[in-house]
C-alpha cells in the first residue's frame, strides 16, 4: 500500500469536482445506453462525491477499495477511509438491464436524468464481514448493520458524474455549502481556524457549550455547525427544526455574528461510532475546517461502543490534518448554579446530567424546558417548525416521512 500524506487538505490533496454543466450533462446522458433509477440515499451520496465532500472518492468503490476500507480503514491508494461507499444492485437487475463492465449508465432520480456511472467493476462482497469490520458487531439491531444486510447481493463500482445538479429546497437552500463554496466563504471571512460541530439534534445548552468549549480549545475564529440531513428515525427531530434552531443560536446572540455558521451535510447516519468519527473528520476537512469536535458517544447507538471510543481512534491512525477537539460532557450543577464542564465541576453527586433525549421527553410531555438547559428562542422555533414543516409535531412521525417536502428536487432535463 502506498505511503501517502493523510494530512493533506482536502483529503488526498485535490478537491474532487465531478459536477457537469447541464448542457454538457445532456450530451453525456445521451451517450449512456442504460437507464437505472436510484433512490434518495444513492442520489445524495452521488452529490457528496461529485461536489467533493467525499474527496478523494470519485465514484462508488470497487472491490479492492471496499475490502481495504473494511479490513484496514484505508483506500487502495493508501488514504484513510472508514465507511464503504457502495452501489448495491440485484443480479436480476443486472441481467434485465444487460449491465456490463465498460457501460455508461444513466442514473435517474425523481424521473429525471441525474448522474452517469462509468461502470468499472461488478462484484460481490461478504456483507457479514463488511458489517463486522465497519460496525464491530454483526447484530442486525444495529442500524448500520441492518443497512448492510439489506444491501442487494452485487455491487457496481466506478466513477460518477452529476449531470443535472438538483435544486436544494427551502429552508435547506440557505445552508447548502459544497466544499468549494465553503472554502471560498471561509477565505472571504478571513477565518483561519474553523472547528466543526457534527449534529443531528436541536441544540440544548449542553450542545451550545460543547461548541463554545471547542471554540476556546482550538482557538478558533468560528464554529461550523454541520447538520446531518438524511434518513430519519421515528421520534428524531425533523430536519427543518435542526437547521433552523442552530441558526437561531447565532441570530439570538448566543454566538456573535462572524463566529458561527450553520451548514448541512446530506448523509444517512450509519451510527458507526469511531469509524464514523473518522469519516466526519475527513468530510469536514474537505469542507475547509481545521478542527473537529468529538464528544461523548459520537455517532454511536445503544451500547455498541464505549462512550469515548471516538476519542481513542484518532491515536490509532495517522494525522488526518484536522485537529481533534476531544471533549467530555457539560451538565447542570445546582451548586454552581450553571451548566458547567464535567471535567472541572467537583459536584459529581449533585450534578444533573441532561441529554437530547431528555429534552425531547420534556417537550413531548408538553413542558417548556428551563432556559438554562434550552434557550427559549430555540424552544419557540422548534414548536414553530413542527407546525410549519412537521404536520403539527417537531418529531418525526409517519406523516412527515410520507409527505415531507423533499430536500432536493431534480429539474426537468430533456435527453
Amino acid at each position: 500500500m502506498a505511503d501517502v500524506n493523510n494530512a493533506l487538505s482536502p483529503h488526498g490533496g485535490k478537491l474532487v469536482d465531478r459536477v457537469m454543466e447541464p448542457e454538457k450533462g445532456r450530451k453525456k446522458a445521451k451517450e449512456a445506453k442504460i437507464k437505472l433509477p436510484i433512490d434518495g440515499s444513492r442520489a445524495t451520496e452521488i452529490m457528496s462525491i461529485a461536489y467533493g465532500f467525499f474527496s478523494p472518492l470519485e465514484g462508488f468503490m470497487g472491490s479492492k477499495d471496499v475490502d481495504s476500507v473494511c479490513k484496514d480503514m484505508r483506500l487502495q491508494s493508501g488514504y484513510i477511509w472508514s465507511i464503504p461507499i457502495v452501489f448495491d444492485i440485484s443480479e436480476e437487475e443486472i441481467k434485465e438491464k444487460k449491465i456490463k463492465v465498460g457501460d455508461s449508465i444513466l442514473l435517474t432520480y425523481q424521473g429525471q436524468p441525474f448522474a452517469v456511472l462509468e461502470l468499472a467493476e461488478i462484484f460481490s462482497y461478504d456483507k457479514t464481514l463488511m458489517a463486522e469490520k465497519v460496525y464491530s458487531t454483526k447484530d442486525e439491531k444495529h442500524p448500520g448493520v441492518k443497512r448492510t444486510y439489506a444491501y442487494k447481493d452485487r455491487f457496481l463500482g466506478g466513477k460518477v458524474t452529476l449531470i443535472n445538479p438538483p435544486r436544494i429546497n427551502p429552508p435547506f437552500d440557505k445552508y447548502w455549502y459544497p466544499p468549494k463554496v465553503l472554502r471560498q466563504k471561509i477565505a472571504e471571512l478571513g477565518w483561519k481556524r474553523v472547528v466543526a460541530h457534527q449534529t443531528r439534534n436541536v441544540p440544548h445548552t449542553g450542545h451550545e457549550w460543547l461548541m463554545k468549549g471547542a471554540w476556546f480549545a482550538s482557538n478558533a475564529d468560528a464554529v461550523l455547525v454541520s447538520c446531518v440531513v438524511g434518513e430519519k428515525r421515528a421520534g428524531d427531530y425533523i430536519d427543518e427544526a435542526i437547521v433552523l434552531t442552530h441558526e437561531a443560536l447565532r441570530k439570538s446572540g448566543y454566538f456573535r455574528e462572524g463566529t458561527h455558521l450553520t451548514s448541512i451535510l446530506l448523509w444517512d447516519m450509519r451510527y458507526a461510532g469511531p469509524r464514523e468519527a473518522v469519516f466526519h473528520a475527513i468530510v469536514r476537512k474537505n469542507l475547509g475546517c481545521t478542527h473537529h469536535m468529538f464528544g461523548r458517544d459520537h455517532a454511536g447507538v445503544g451500547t455498541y461502543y464505549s462512550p469515548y471510543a471516538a476519542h481513542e481512534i484518532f491515536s490509532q491512525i495517522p494525522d488526518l490534518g484536522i485537529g481533534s477537539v476531544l471533549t467530555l460532557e457539560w451538565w447542570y450543577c445546582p451548586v454552581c448554579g450553571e451548566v458547567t464542564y464535567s471535567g472541572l465541576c467537583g459536584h459529581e453527586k449533585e450534578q444533573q446530567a441532561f441529554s437530547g433525549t431528555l429534552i425531547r421527553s420534556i417537550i413531548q410531555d408538553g413542558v417548556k424546558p428551563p432556559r438554562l438547559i434550552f434557550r427559549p428562542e430555540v424552544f419557540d422555533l422548534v414548536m414553530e417548525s413542527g407546525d410549519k414543516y412537521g404536520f403539527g409535531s417537531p418529531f418525526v412521525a409517519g406523516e412527515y416521512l410520507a409527505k415531507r417536502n423533499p430536500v432536493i428536487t431534480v429539474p426537468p432535463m430533456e435527453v
Partner: protein
Amino acid sequence: MAQTFPINIWINEERLDKLQRAGLAHLAQEVFAGLKKLPVPTNEEQRDTILRRFPTAKYDSATTKSIELLPRDIKDRIFTLVVEKKTLNVIDAFLAST
C-alpha cells in the same frame, strides 16, 4: 438495594395541580433550576417490558439512566395511577392494565 430505572414524568401545571390536590406535591423533584419531575421507578425486568411494549420509548443509558420518550398518553396513565394509589410504585399495576 437493587438498581432502579426511573420513568421521568415531567410536571406541567395541570399535573402539578393534580399532585397538590392529592397531597403528593412532595413526590415531585426539582431539577434544572425550575423544572419538576416525578421519577417513577422500574426494576430491570419492568424496564425491559416497557421498552418492548412501547418502541418509541428509549432508555438513556449514556447520560440520564432513565426511561424517556414514552408516549404522553401512556405517561398520563402512569401519572393517574400514582395519584390514585398515592405511591410511586405503580408499574406492576400499570403493566397489568396494559
